[in-house]
């Protein structure tokens, strides 16, 4: 495909900017730790609730962190109307979309990978036997979140007075993803039957595919003025 190189170029630029500032990753990392600490005050220590709500806290932390990461990633294209600069380049909108999704998935997933072990320690989780399906859930959840988030952050970045749009759209629309991810994570951690987990995972995959196709098709309308 002839735009592969351009996808790579955009991705490379985003990684370069990230390596330069280490903004997104470090801050998301610390942020998700902070979220975990804050959420702890919701519960009495050592209580049952705490153990059962670990998957919820985990995903809410990831969702918040991703939201911030996404808005940062698009804010970068805004400073000097850089998105217009991208639009001046002879590149398909779909290539821009793919590159942006790839970058966002990469950053968010990295953060999750680093945060997860810390969470495992903090909540005394036993992920030994289920680490593989857990990783799958993580990737699937991230993919869905980043896909929708990429489109929405483009909308919210492009249309001025609708700056609010990212969280307004992102959270309600991704509630299904977050829920499916929470459910399968908690089933996995509770050692439930794989078939039960699988029903949620299937849902997650379905959401991912639908969102990706729809977003891919809609993206070009979103980035243009």
């Amino acid at each position, binding site marked *: 495909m002839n735009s592969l190189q351009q996808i790579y170029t955009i991705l490379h630029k985003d990684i370069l900017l990230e390596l330069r500032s280490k903004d997104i990753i470090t801050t998301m990392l610390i942020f998700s730790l902070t979220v975990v600490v804050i959420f702890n005050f919701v519960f009495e220590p050592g209580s049952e609730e705490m153990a059962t709500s670990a998957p919820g806290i985990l995903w809410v932390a990831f969702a918040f962190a991703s939201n911030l990461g996404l808005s940062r990633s698009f804010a970068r294209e805004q400073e000097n109307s850089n998105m217009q600069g991208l639009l001046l380049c*002879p590149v398909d909108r779909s290539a821009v979309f793919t590159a942006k999704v790839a970058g966002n998935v990469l950053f968010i997933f990295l953060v999750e990978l680093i945060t997860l072990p810390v969470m495992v320690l903090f909540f005394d989780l036993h992920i030994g036997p289920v680490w593989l399906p857990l990783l799958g859930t993580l990737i699937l959840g991230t993919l869905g979140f980043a896909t929708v988030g990429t489109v929405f952050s483009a909308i919210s970045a492009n249309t001025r007075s609708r700056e609010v749009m990212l969280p307004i759209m992102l959270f309600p629309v991704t509630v299904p993803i977050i829920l499916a991810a929470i459910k399968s994570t908690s089933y996995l951690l509770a050692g439930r039957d794989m078939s039960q987990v699988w029903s949620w995972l299937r849902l997650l995959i379905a959401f991912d595919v639908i969102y990706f196709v729809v977003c891919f098709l809609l993206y070009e309308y979103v980035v243009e003025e």
Partner: protein
Amino acid sequence: MIRAQKIGKSFGPLRALSDVNFEISQGELIALLGANGAGKTTLIRILAALTRPSTGTAEVAGYELNREQQQVRKRIGVVSHQTLLYGEMSAQENLYFYGRMFRVPDLQSRIDELLGLMELKKRRHDLVRTFSRGMQQRLSLARAVLHQPNVLLLDEPFTGLDIHAEELLTRFIEKAVADQVTVLMTVHDLDYARDHAQRLLVLHKGRLAIDAAAAQTTRAQIVELIRE
């Protein structure tokens, strides 16, 4: 190389452009003039495919603007009111990024050449956000011409440039025109436009009021249009 047909643009109730028609052939240097708010930037943005016209069509560099945007984009270089540069990347990195996006062959030497031309070589590794206004404008010019476009759309390209850079840019444009590049640029300096441009387009409240060679219009005519 550029043909605008019945171009109109409304922002809600406000008509920024109405029924603009003109043609520019290859290798022409055209100045787009007009009062503040006359619609110059809007027109340039439409020709650069950054905004869709409300009505009308245009052809740029031999391609239809609406249907063959990619082909158009490959062939145009745009300087706009914003610099379109990444503040957290260095001058060199910005050019490198845009160069790759445009698949510029032999990119590194092209970057060296342009940084040399704009006299930014010493600052090539500094972050763009630390640049002064004029330095950013210079880099923005370098960015626009990186891929050797056939058509240059320049919206107030002299903004913030010191007199030395102004001369550099003038010479650059002259050379480009000699190489058959088509240039459409907005300027506020009437005398500059009359001295350098082969033809003047003057917008007046969104309509094309004058489309004539410099010799065929008087300065007073244009001034009057700008004064309303």
